């Protein structure tokens, strides 16, 4: 009974190296939207003491002076590389749960009969590296929670193969004893403070606590964690068909936006993107919400936060309906005289694309619901936006300040890497 957790090492930084072999061994950091904070670091950057989430301006000079290379985030590229990695995993393992952009759980139960699981892990790691250029680490253990522990052990023990398996009770207990309780999957800072007060400081102490006591004192969620640490599988590999409950597209702006004429096309761009995601999920939404807010860090300026939800009588995933609703929501919440720093759109109350409860009354604003039309638009815009809606900003203008973005090497014809 084995599960594996595959984790892409310093994923964003590793992606930036794929088409830039000259950056091998060069410290790399990737910045958040608007180039505000450090959100990813290569091993070399970590060794330089660059912390996660530190404001870029604080470390910029020292980092660049030591030869570091900085990138604005390029999520189109990272997303595409992530898909490539996940596709490889899905080609070898029947059940894969894509947990995040750089992590996936694999169910290896059915492979145990014919394969040496540790060898299989090493083989997969080699293939992912060879086929995509992305280095991964793999933790193998009987439960999801223990795979996280196994993964931490790769780092702690500095295992050269970057694959670690913990199976026997001795191996598991040793790994648990070396894991602080706040490093256990699902135990946050506040919960670990409570556990510390109960004299539980490491994962082994947590695993040795009576699960019924944990359920009584804390929660059934933590009881599940305890049982998982003891090797009882409580959390199965989930298929990735679990429907989302909401979709949010929001951005902080690089420059403040004070007029509706500028803000509306930005919100329209968010609405278009959110609608694309909704169709990709094969869902329809009945609620469209828009929010705008000024920067809480601009103390001296007037502050305003606006939020408005529009209910749709009939669920839709047609961009045109969502654009109409977004406009309806934005107009009453926008106030002139404020410097808005962030806006976003939230789609919620989802229903399946293929199911529909018919209504007795016709809504005068009946959704347009032309799925073929939207399908064509999605195909045309699959890799590069070619068709815009009238209320969008058609110029290649981004609300974000991103001055150091790498090319979209794998998703844009015009930005393909050139071999000289």
């Amino acid at each position, binding site marked *: 009974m084995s599960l594996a957790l595959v984790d892409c090492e310093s994923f964003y930084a590793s992606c930036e190296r794929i088409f830039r072999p000259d950056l091998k061994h060069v410290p790399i950091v990737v910045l958040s939207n608007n180039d505000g904070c450090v959100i990813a670091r290569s091993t070399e950057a970590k060794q330089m003491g660059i912390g996660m989430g530190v404001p870029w301006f604080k470390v910029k000079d020292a980092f660049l002076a030591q030869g570091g290379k900085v990138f604005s985030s390029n999520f189109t590229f990272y997303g595409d590389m992530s898909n490539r990695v996940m596709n490889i995993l899905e080609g070898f393992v029947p059940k894969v749960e894509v947990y995040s952009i750089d992590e996936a759980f694999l169910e290896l139960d059915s492979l145990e009969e014919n394969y040496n699981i540790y060898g299989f892990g090493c083989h997969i790691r080699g293939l992912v590296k060879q086929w995509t250029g992305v280095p991964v680490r793999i933790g193998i253990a009987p439960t999801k929670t223990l795979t996280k522990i196994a993964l931490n052990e790769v780092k702690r023990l500095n295992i050269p193969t970057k694959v670690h398996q913990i199976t026997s009770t001795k191996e598991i207990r040793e790994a648990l004893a070396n894991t602080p309780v706040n490093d256990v999957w699902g135990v946050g800072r506040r919960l670990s403070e409570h556990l510390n007060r109960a004299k539980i400081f490491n994962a082994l102490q947590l695993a040795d606590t009576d699960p019924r006591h944990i359920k009584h004192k804390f929660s059934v969620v933590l009881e599940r964690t305890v049982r998982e640490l003891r090797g009882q599988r409580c959390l199965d590999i989930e298929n990735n068909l679990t429907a989302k409950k909401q979709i949010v597209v929001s951005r902080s702006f690089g420059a403040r936006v004070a007029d509706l004429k500028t803000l509306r096309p930005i919100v329209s761009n968010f609405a278009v993107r959110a609608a694309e995601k909704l169709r990709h999920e094969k869902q329809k939404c009945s609620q469209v919400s828009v929010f705008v807010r000024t920067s809480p860090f601009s103390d001296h300026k007037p502050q305003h936060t606006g939020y408005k939800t529009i209910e749709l009588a009939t669920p839709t995933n047609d961009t045109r309906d969502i654009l109409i609703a977004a406009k309806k929501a934005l107009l009453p919440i926008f106030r002139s005289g404020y410097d808005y720093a962030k806006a976003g759109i939230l789609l919620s109350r989802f229903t399946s694309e293929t199911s*529909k409860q018919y209504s007795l009354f016709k809504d005068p604003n009946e959704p347009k619901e032309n799925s073929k039309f939207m399908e064509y638009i999605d195909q045309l815009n699959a890799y590069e936006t070619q068709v815009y809606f009238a209320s969008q900003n058609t110029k290649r203008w981004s609300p974000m300040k991103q001055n150091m973005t790498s090319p979209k090497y794998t998703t844009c014809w015009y930005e393909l890497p050139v071999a000289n």
Partner: protein
Amino acid sequence: MDFYITKEEIVKSLSATLGVVEKRQTLPILSNVLISVDEASVKLKATDLESEIETLSTITNFKSGGQTTAPAKKLSELCRLLPDLSEIHVFLDGENLKIETSSGKYSLATLPSADFPIFDIEEDKNKTSIQAPSLKELINKTSFAMGNQDWRHYLNGLYLVIDDTKITGVATDAHRLAIANQMVNEGSEETISGIIPRKSINEIAKIINDKNENISLEIGSSSISIESGETKFSSKLIEGKFPDYEQVIPSGESSELTINKKNLSESLSRVSVLSSEKYRGVRMRITDNNLNISANNPEKEQAEEQIDCAYEGEIIDIAFNVNYLQEILSSIDSENVIIHFFGSDKSCLITSPDSENYKYVVMPLLI
């Protein structure tokens, strides 16, 4: 204020007011009940600013009159827990309301009666009356179909129309619609109508007893009042235009299914166990005198049953939210029900072979 009253008398009145008292009130005084005492009776009044209830109870001994307000829930709970047939001595002592029985003393905080909100009731209302069982049936047959927190606020209530001596109740949440007709005692010259809020309909249903007594009904342009025995209830009406419900009642040529209500309901209950939790969809396929009911869910579990029925019409394959069907079946009293189908993506009409006083329209589900 100083009077004596029996436990049973005050508990009955307090219970009636509790439904109106706001649980999460905006003004503290809205969780209080206004107590007004005169020589013969004590009047209790509660409001949530949208509706108001007033009850009258007989007192056993009067010492002095007056008004105050006290927390409704605590007062009701306390009186309910007193020994049966207790005589309760109620009096004001400064800012506290004292409750005394032969075995105990209790003191409750009060708020000034002058702060109790006055509920505006329009004077010029159309008056009629209706037998209690008729009004009760009208509400029972329709209220389940009212909208609940729907953004179309006019759906969150029961639409009442009085035309001459006919009173019609209509409720819909846009997916199903329920209509019931009854008679009022005195005809009205002009057509009167109004949408009564969901919460008020639930309160009215509680007030009406099963005795064959007259209920006075007054409907104005913005409020409704009903009076049953010693209880008077008033509510604001929902502003807005109720949808043209007559237009959505299907008519014309239909396929007609006649089926035993109990068999259908039990079969739906069993099959729906394996329906999708989100849509609660059940599929009905009807061929020659055979109804096939099936359901499945995302976990790929399936259920299927066959029931004998009488069917005239073309083969139909249609799906419904099972909850909508079950609620309608529960409100029909007859042994059999008739379902008229007009197409698999069109509404169907459900009626009883025994009564033309009520009918139901349900929209199908695409699954």
